[in-house]
């Protein structure tokens, strides 16, 4: 069986800090979109989105305190999503 920890309680303060951090990152991503970095803009925006997503995932969704099964299966899902997009480009990028 999965090793199951006790329910973890995340304090209001932590949650509030995460929310503020998310606001800041939203500001940064909007600001960054005004810079002209060419292709880099997309990757930067996605990178910031990934950080925001990780924050939501870790703290709001308690993933930081989950066991192995959930962590690995989540990574597996993201991996499959990555395959879906990237392998399509074997076709699209070389046509």
């Amino acid at each position, binding site marked *: 069986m999965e090793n199951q920890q006790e329910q973890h309680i995340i304090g209001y303060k932590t949650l509030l800090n995460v929310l503020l951090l998310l606001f800041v990152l939203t500001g940064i991503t909007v600001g960054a979109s005004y810079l002209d970095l060419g292709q880099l803009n997309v990757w930067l925006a996605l990178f910031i989105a990934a950080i925001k997503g990780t924050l939501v995932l870790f703290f709001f969704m308690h993933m930081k305190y989950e066991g192995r099964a959930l962590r690995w299966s989540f990574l597996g899902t993201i991996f499959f999503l990555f*395959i879906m997009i990237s392998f399509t480009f074997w076709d699209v990028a070389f*046509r």
Partner: protein
Amino acid sequence: METVKSFFETPAPARFKGVLSWLITTDHKRIGLMYLFAIIFWFLLAVVLGGLLRLELMFQGETFLSAQLYNSVFTLHGVIMIFLFIIPALPAVFGNFFLPIQIGTDDVFFPKLNLLSWYLYMAGGVIAVISLFSDGFPDTGWTFYVPFSISTNTNVSTAVSAAFVLGLASMLTGLNFITTIHRMRNRAMGWLQMPLFTWTLYATSWVQLLATPVISITLILVVIERYLGVGLFDPSKGGDPILYQHLFWMYSHPAVYIMILPGMGVISEIIPVFSRKSIFGYKAIVASSMAIAVAGSLVWAHHMYTSGMSDTAVFVFSLLTFVVAIPSAIKVFSWVATLYKGSIQMTPPLFLSLCFIYLFSVGGLTGLVLGAAGANIHVHDTHFVVSHFHFTMFGGTGFAFFAALHYWWPKMFGRMYNFKIAYIASILVTGGFIFHYVPMFILGLQGMPRRYYDYLPQFESGNFLAGFGAAFMIVGIFLMFANLLLTLRKDRDASSDPWGGITLEWQTASPPPLHNFTTEPEVLDYPYDFTGVVEKYSKKPKGE
């Protein structure tokens, strides 16, 4: 014989007697049986439809199906066989019935969700039937390729919704099984003490869970295109029709592993039992199941070599396709190695398993012919492809389904069937199968395309022969089901362990009681340790 009340005799709640008490049941065994009867119905219907196709093709020219009707019949045959039979056949029937028993627990984790899946499955079937009687059944084939599926006037939207609902049912079943395996295994059972059928179900469930949403969104997009005309796949509006095929096969290729993996699990259960010998390479089989699940999702575009993909993609996907053959081969070698020097007891399930190994190997090897890009271009969309996937899907999953039926029938219903008739039926099906599909390989190599109701004169003799094979096969299938179903009229006569199996389902009564076990089942350290069985049988005279 059994003093324990079986799940058939569960007292019905007030107001819900008889059939009604089954319709509100959350007992995984009853749900499994409800799936079984629905699936047998759909299977036999689709077999008859397939027979009609073959009859039409036996003679050149229009025999009795018009071109349009032929298109609808092969679409219907494909949709029913794929979405209503092969995908749910093993997981939904035997998975539901035996997964909780094999891991020593009393139900799946979400029993109500399980019942919901069954209702979704039935709803999907009903919607598919409705689409028949509205604007004519779609003539797109089960693949619903754009742009035809978006422009044809037949009722694609309804058929697509049916596939969507069926996908949802399959996805929820997968979700249920994964949670059950993670959370409800008997405390004494570690991961590497799980029976191989459970392992393959676990791998299958992950594929069901992660791949099915892709087809869901794809089918939603087809409906959106038909009603709103967004143009995501329409070249005149900047869309790319090949992307539809990418999305479609992103699900549908992993789906063939949804179909075959549990079949491999069944064979891995049956072979050691009748060889009285531990399975060869337990860990290798477990690992190859998971490897198939992963590698199977990397190869989807090998269905699209002639669709206008880039050459790079053809190269990459062809290479990966060869890789995915390795884990399947590992399993085949392990089964054969298990039989080697075993004390083999021939029974109908073992006979069907041996047929499975043979037919599936042919299917798998011709898959390599198709996976090689060069050969594929020659035989793409010919009868060679049709024959190949019938060898894997029917010769593979279909035969595994038959084998599972014969293996677990006494456990599910407590009744043993007639061996002689079972053998005759199996031989008819297998022989008919070979006569049916081998000519199709040749026809395909000669260049006969699939999905046409007519052909050039030189293909007539091959098609004529194939039609005869089909007739034998269909007779065999009906005989097989009649033999099984007729046992329901006699009294229960099967013991709790008629075969000498040692996985947990053989430790309980046949049929099992409501909560599966009346005493704590004894989990073996190694699930295929037959020393006890061999001892028991060497003392007793043969055949109990």
